[in-house]
């Protein structure tokens, strides 16, 4: 099915199942520990061996020599695989650095060997016996230094392939020079780690030349394709299975070393092999969100209307890597005739930078939405009012291109009212509660809606059971449940009559989970398959499918009615289709909107920040399941709180690695850090985006949160911190005197 004109009324609009709060259908499995994650397929993989990965101890250089003998002689060891004995390996399309390094080393903790043994303890102990002599080389590990000579970089995801690296509208320089009120500030965001709870893990089993990998991966088809490329085997010979994923946030978008090393280890040992990355490998062996340096200039009239806006960002990555697209939202979020955005990309030798929850917008909004707060203060204008005044209903660079739906103003206004925004003191540092300095902050939320083709297969059994199969993944997002809701709505059955099977490359290729496109795209694929199944049912029952109503297990047309299950003859009725996307995203800008409100308290003696209240108001099309959607948003708000206050991978600029590479050193929010959170969804249905009329919220929820926290902290203290995270050392010596 191709979606190339706005959606008309369709069975989803009934919203008997879709759009209603429903607990996760896999909830009883997850809460009893019976949902099998990647490392846990004990029932299907018997007699596995265990692999332990050795990571490079240098950031850049070469392996001069590697002595394996002691490890190979260690008790229980079955095989040791290195680049030297692994045979020729390719590199996946989505990987920047090789997943098995040697002799050249591209980054710290790059995998250089896997030791396979009978037990986990034996493999781990033997891995420590490999002796490696390195010839280290000088690397580029200092972003600030590297950006001094970094060239401009294009947005790698831009649909306009010939676009110049700088985006210009009007004449920014001249307009900015003449603007009555100006802001010109530099903001920095640090490298961040996804730190999902389940480290990457895979079990690989060969059967002749066929390979099955049980793994933890957000994008089944990408991973499967890249594993085939890496191993130099036909894609058809590789099966990827990933029914449960212990979090990803972008870190499991790609094939990683666990899957490659498990496959190589299994081949060498002649046994299925399990490999899990140790927690301390996550930041340096896998990917992270790259640090940015962002300069923002805004010129406004005395009335608060933006006349000129420029956002320039710099980030770094390994050779052939990509920029962090932190300026994306600035092209679309606020009005203003004169505009400039650009990115610079420095080639560096730190581990691979890549997508983390809302890549681009998350760090971009961290900077832009502090800048808006600063501008409001210079204009003596309320920060909510400033954003309202600069709303635009069209793409500011292409005014003939409207937003499909844009309810930013309502989000801001409703949020302000709900949060008690009028109680905020416009003068910072003015509100005290005992020894606490108290403040409120706001920020807009913005994240684009992306469209990815997505397929599904739907089966109807004689028992009336509807089975959905798609390689879509559920990384905590609620895919199982919203897909069941979609199929139940389309086929007119109770949600308990739907079985959802996900995360297997034997199923049709879906959008996968990323870029907050998963909910809308994967359910649209299920919608398409269900339309086909409805047609097949109607044909069997001799009913005109266009007029048929599917409800309560019955198919009705006029005064005719038949049982749904009666359409099934021998075996089962099967339909498969894929949702493909026409050009509606070219004629309409499709984005999601929101507003964040935060109340923070700062200890006037220690500078410690505590978040007291958080509210998000979201306008993101139809909300398919308010329960799971709300959880996505509160989770994103939590990660945003971490970005604001604690998360930072500390770079050792001399040796080239992230120093705090575990969950003790890399601090993420814990229970004590997060208050009760409120989320409001505006009632919407966006007919330009899909027949589901839904967009995503999982990344919208993180965009702007950190800035709202930063603005609340500023409102509490009067000390502006522009370098994330806002740790107490950055404002302690400037806090208002303790009286």
């Amino acid at each position: 099915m191709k979606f190339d004109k706005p959606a008309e009324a369709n069975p989803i609009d009934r919203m008997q199942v879709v759009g209603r709060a429903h607990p996760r259908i896999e909830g009883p499995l997850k809460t009893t520990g019976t949902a099998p994650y990647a490392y846990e397929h004990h029932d299907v993989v018997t007699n596995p061996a265990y692999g332990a990965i050795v990571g490079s101890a240098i950031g850049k250089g070469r392996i001069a020599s590697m002595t394996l003998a002691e490890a190979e002689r260690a008790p229980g060891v079955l095989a040791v695989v290195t680049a030297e004995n692994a045979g020729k390996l390719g590199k996946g399309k989505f990987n920047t650095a090789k997943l098995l390094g040697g002799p050249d080393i591209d980054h710290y903790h790059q995998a250089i060997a896997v030791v396979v043994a009978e037990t986990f303890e034996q493999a781990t102990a033997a891995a420590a016996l490999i002796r490696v002599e390195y010839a280290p080389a000088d690397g580029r590990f200092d972003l600030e230094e590297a950006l001094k000579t970094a060239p401009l970089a294009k947005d790698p995801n831009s649909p306009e392939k010939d676009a110049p690296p700088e985006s210009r509208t009007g004449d920014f320089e001249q307009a900015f020079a003449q603007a009555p009120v100006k802001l010109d500030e530099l903001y920095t965001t640090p490298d961040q780690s996804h730190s999902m709870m389940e480290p990457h893990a895979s079990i690989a089993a060969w059967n002749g030349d066929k390979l099955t990998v049980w793994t933890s991966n957000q994008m089944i088809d990408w991973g499967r394709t890249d594993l085939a490329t890496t191993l130099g085997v036909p894609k058809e010979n590789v099966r990827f299975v990933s029914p449960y994923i212990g979090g990803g946030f972008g870190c499991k978008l790609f094939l990683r070393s666990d899957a490659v090393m498990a496959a190589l280890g299994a081949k060498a040992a002649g046994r299925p092999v399990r490999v899990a990355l140790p927690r301390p490998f996550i930041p340096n062996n896998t990917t992270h969100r790259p640090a940015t340096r962002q300069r923002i200039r805004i010129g406004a009239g005395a009335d608060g209307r933006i006349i000129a806006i420029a956002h320039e960002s710099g980030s770094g990555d390994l050779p052939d890597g990509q920029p962090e697209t932190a300026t994306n939202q600035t092209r679309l979020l606020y009005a203003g005739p004169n505009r400039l955005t650009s990115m610079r990309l420095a080639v560096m030798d730190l581990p691979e930078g890549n997508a983390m929850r809302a890549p681009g917008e998350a760090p971009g909004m961290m900077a832009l939405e502090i800048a808006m707060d600063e501008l409001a203060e210079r204009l003596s204008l309320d920060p909510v009012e400033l954003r309202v005044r600069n709303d635009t209903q069209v793409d500011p660079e292409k005014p003939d291109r409207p937003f499909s739906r844009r309810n930013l103003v309502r989000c801001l206004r409703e949020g302000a009212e709900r949060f008690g925004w009028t109680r905020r003191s416009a003068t910072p540092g003015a509100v005290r509660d005992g020894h606490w300095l108290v403040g409120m902050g706001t920020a807009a939320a913005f994240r684009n809606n992306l469209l990815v083709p997505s397929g599904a297969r739907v089966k109807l059994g004689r028992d009336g059971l509807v089975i959905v199969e798609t390689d879509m993944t559920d990384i905590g997002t609620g895919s199982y449940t919203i897909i069941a809701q979609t199929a139940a709505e389309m086929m007119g059955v109770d949600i308990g009559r739907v079985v959802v099977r996900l995360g297997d490359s034997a199923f049709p290729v879906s959008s996968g989970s990323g870029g907050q496109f998963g909910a809308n795209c994967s359910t649209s694929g299920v919608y398409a398959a269900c339309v086909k199944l409805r047609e097949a049912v109607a044909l069997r029952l001799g009913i005109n499918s266009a007029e048929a109503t599917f409800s309560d297990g019955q198919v009705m047309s006029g005064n005719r009615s038949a049982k749904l299950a009666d359409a099934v003859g021998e075996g089962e009725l099967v339909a498969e289709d894929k949702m493909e996307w026409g050009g509606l995203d070219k004629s309409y800008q499709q984005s999601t909107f929101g507003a964040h409100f935060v109340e923070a308290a700062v200890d006037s003696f220690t500078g410690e920040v505590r978040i007291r209240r958080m509210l998000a108001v979201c306008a993101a099309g139809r909300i398919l399941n308010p329960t799971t959607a709300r959880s996505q948003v509160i989770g994103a708000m939590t990660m945003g709180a971490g970005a604001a206050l604690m998360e930072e991978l500390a770079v050792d600029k001399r040796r080239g690695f992230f120093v705090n590479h575990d969950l003790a050193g890399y601090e993420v929010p814990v229970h004590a850090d997060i208050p009760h959170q409120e989320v409001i969804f505006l009632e919407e249905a966006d007919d330009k985006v899909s027949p589901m009329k839904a967009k995503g919220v999982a990344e919208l929820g993180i965009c702007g949160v950190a800035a709202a926290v930063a603005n609340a902290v500023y409102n509490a203290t009067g000390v502006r911190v522009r370098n994330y995270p806002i740790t107490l050392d950055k404002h302690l010596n400037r806090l208002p005197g303790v009286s």
Partner: protein
Amino acid sequence: MPKPVKLEVSRRRLLAAGTATAMAGVVPGAQAQPHPSRQKPSQRPTGVSFEVNGKPRSLQVDNRTTLLDALRENLSLTGTKKGCDHGQCGACTVIVNGVRINSCLTLAVMHEGDRITTIEGLGQPEQLHPMQAAFVKHDGYQCGYCTPGQICSAVAVLDEIKAGIPSHVSPDLTAPPELTNAELRERMSGNICRCGAYSNIAEAIAEVAGSST
């Protein structure tokens, strides 16, 4: 003042009850444990017997095997999760002799005769423990990987409060601790949820706490 708690305090419990540092001189469970073997590691497995979810289990384990790996690998009880393998995340939380511990920070051979409860022992999909049911109802999880640890911790936290053990945020160390949101959040802070379900988890625990008191 409530009766002092038994002095067999695990490290986890000490962390949960930060103000209880006066007890720090006591070696955790010293009187109950045989001294770990001084043999060369890995060559000779050691026999160990304990009770898991009410069933007696006897294992031959590598002396280096953690309780976590013994549960997951030797007994195929994979409900207990490995999130960091060194006591930083709480995903491996199990209840040993009524006290929650990080099963990755303790060796299997140290648990001769112990009573171990894992997530599988609290309830099953068709027969959920009230805490499991409350997590489902309040959507106190997303990816589900930290969830068994959160639930085991939550069950034990309510018992700790009942037992009168104060925490870092208890305003009065000698008064029975109250079941406040701040108390629950403080005591649950050893269990990280990167999906960020904290606000919902707090509601799930509060509901169970409310109905059980």
